[in-house]
């Protein structure tokens, strides 16, 4: 009986150790909201510059592909922006609603113990809806684009007031893709009502699309949370059909960063020491 008990205890101990041997690649996520200053120029709607403000939301997730290899990670980022801009004479307004999703991968260079360089790229799909209520027959124009971007990050862990504050500069810039740009005199009635999309879809590359989307963030750890403060600048210019578009955004965001791991399915169940409300 005593021997049986000892064997059972040893087996139980072995099982518990097997579970704790597994490495879990945490997903590092962040949610941010903020205010942005916007400047846009859409010659399809107006030759003038429109300036205004917007409300932005960003959700980011990053994790290593393989927890055994901490040099390659994936990142996804979804953002939404709602803005209201006016022309300089204040005679008309353009409402802007935009969204963007990008997914990419980074190679981690650990240059120094506190300094990392992440180099890689991402693919993004972006959409923007611009509405000028004063216009006749061309009140709306949409931005639709898919891009392959060069992306990078520089991370530095600074010791500030006994806290390790992570300072990050991130950027991405479009290299190639395709975009929707209508002819300035082609009506949406002709394009979508009559199905004539000639000259509306264009290949984009550095010769006709130049942009730099950069963000500086500071992650400040507290007892139970990590505050993320961000400053982002997005400059984008593109041209097709002899018209040049511009979108510029400068904004400030506030949010929080957290880590999590997803347990789901029969083969990826949570360990016994993880307690769920489903139980």
């Amino acid at each position, binding site marked *: 009986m005593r021997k049986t008990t000892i064997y059972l205890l040893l087996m139980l101990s072995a099982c518990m*150790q097997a579970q704790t041997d597994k490495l879990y690649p945490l997903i590092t996520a962040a949610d941010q909201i903020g205010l942005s200053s916007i400047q846009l120029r859409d010659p399809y709607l107006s*030759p003038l510059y429109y300036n205004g403000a917007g409300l932005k939301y960003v959700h980011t997730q990053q994790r290593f592909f393989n*927890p055994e290899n901490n040099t390659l990670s994936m990142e996804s980022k979804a953002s939404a922006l709602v803005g209201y801009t006016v022309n300089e004479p204040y005679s008309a307004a353009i409402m802007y609603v935009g969204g963007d999703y990008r997914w990419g991968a980074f190679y981690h260079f650990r240059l120094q113990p506190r300094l990392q360089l992440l180099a890689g790229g991402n693919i993004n799909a972006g959409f923007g809806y611009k509405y000028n209520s004063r216009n006749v027959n061309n009140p709306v124009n949409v931005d639709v684009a898919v891009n392959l971007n*060069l992306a990078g990050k520089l991370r530095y862990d600074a010791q500030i007031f006994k806290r390790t504050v992570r300072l990050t500069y991130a950027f991405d810039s479009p290299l190639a893709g395709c975009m929707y740009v209508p*002819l300035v005199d082609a009506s949406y009635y002709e394009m979508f009502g009559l199905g004539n999309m000639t*000259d509306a879809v264009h290949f984009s590359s550095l010769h006709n699309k130049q942009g730099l989307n950069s963000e500086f963030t500071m992650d400040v750890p507290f007892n139970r949370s990590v505050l993320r403060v961000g400053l982002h600048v997005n400059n984008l210019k*593109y041209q097709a059909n002899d018209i040049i578009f511009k979108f510029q955004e400068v904004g400030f965001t506030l949010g929080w960063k957290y880590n999590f791991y997803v347990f789901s399915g029969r083969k990826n169940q949570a360990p016994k020491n993880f307690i769920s409300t489903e139980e």
Partner: protein
Amino acid sequence: MFSRDVKIRRRKILSAPKNDFFKTNTSFMKKILLSIVSACTLFWFSSCIDEPEIYANDNQGNFEALWDIIDTRYCYLSYKNINWDSIHTAYAQKFNKNTSEQDMFNILGEMLAELKDGHVNLYSDFDRSRYWKWFTDYPDNFNPDLIYTDRYLSDDYQIAGGMRYAKIANGKVGYIYYGDFSSYFTDANISYILNSFRDCNGLIIDVRGNGGGYLSLAGQLASYFFSKETLTGYMQHKNGNGHDDFSKPVELKTSAHKTIQWQRPVIILSNRHAYSATNSFISRMKLAPYALIVGDKSGGGGGMPLSSELPNGWMVRFSSSPMFDAGMNHIEWGIDPDVKVDMSSEDQTNGYDTIIEKAVQILTR
């Protein structure tokens, strides 16, 4: 929490640089990255996209901006034989830097009136320039008070989707007045209307005084009178700054409605105030199998207008996409009726609408 082996593995993974792959490939990766960034930077700076200059927000700048918008984007300069360069010379002398805002608006409005186009307007906070001679220089051929007398719609007409309708001519003719192609109607509206006229000899659709609206509604209304899809016109748009830079014409087809069909006589009443989308509707109905156009020539307005802005924020509307009939003829100046009828003042005095009476005569003979 972790076994000793796991602790060692974690230390190896998390501290860097420790593995061979990282050591041997770091410099190579750095070189590749540097090359890509350098190439991109070089290409980026060598082909920077220069933003175009915007005209100054002064009298000269606003004049040049307006003239340039019409010069590069208005679609009828060649068709109408307008020497836009001469107009620039003539109107540039009419103002100076001290010309008032109101006077400047009037001068620019007069310049736009040279285009003789009802689709061309200049909008400011205090006025809208317009060219209305496409109907003011011609007989009205429509009396809106007359159609509401007991002889026609009377007081108890029905309203559905912007259409006012009733039986006239002792119940032998169905009459619809549709005054605005901005008023939406549904298939259900039309179904009820046409069903109420099922015992009539024919149908009158009166679009006199209808200044236009949505092109899509013009196509939808026409679709109830075609039994098969029919090519009824063409459309182009400008694809360059030259006066003759146009895209290939795109076919404008009028489809046959799948469930609602009026395959009996229908007469469209037209006058000079039937403009823009109404003009397009009349152009389509010219090819409808049982349709006749009665009244006066329509006002035209064959160019679909778009909008732009001047540096001072004034908006300009201008014809941008010319439309044609099925024979590739411009419809800018209007559509001739099949039966030309003018309203007589004597008839009006006696309470008769000459054009409606002619249509009734055709439908009941």
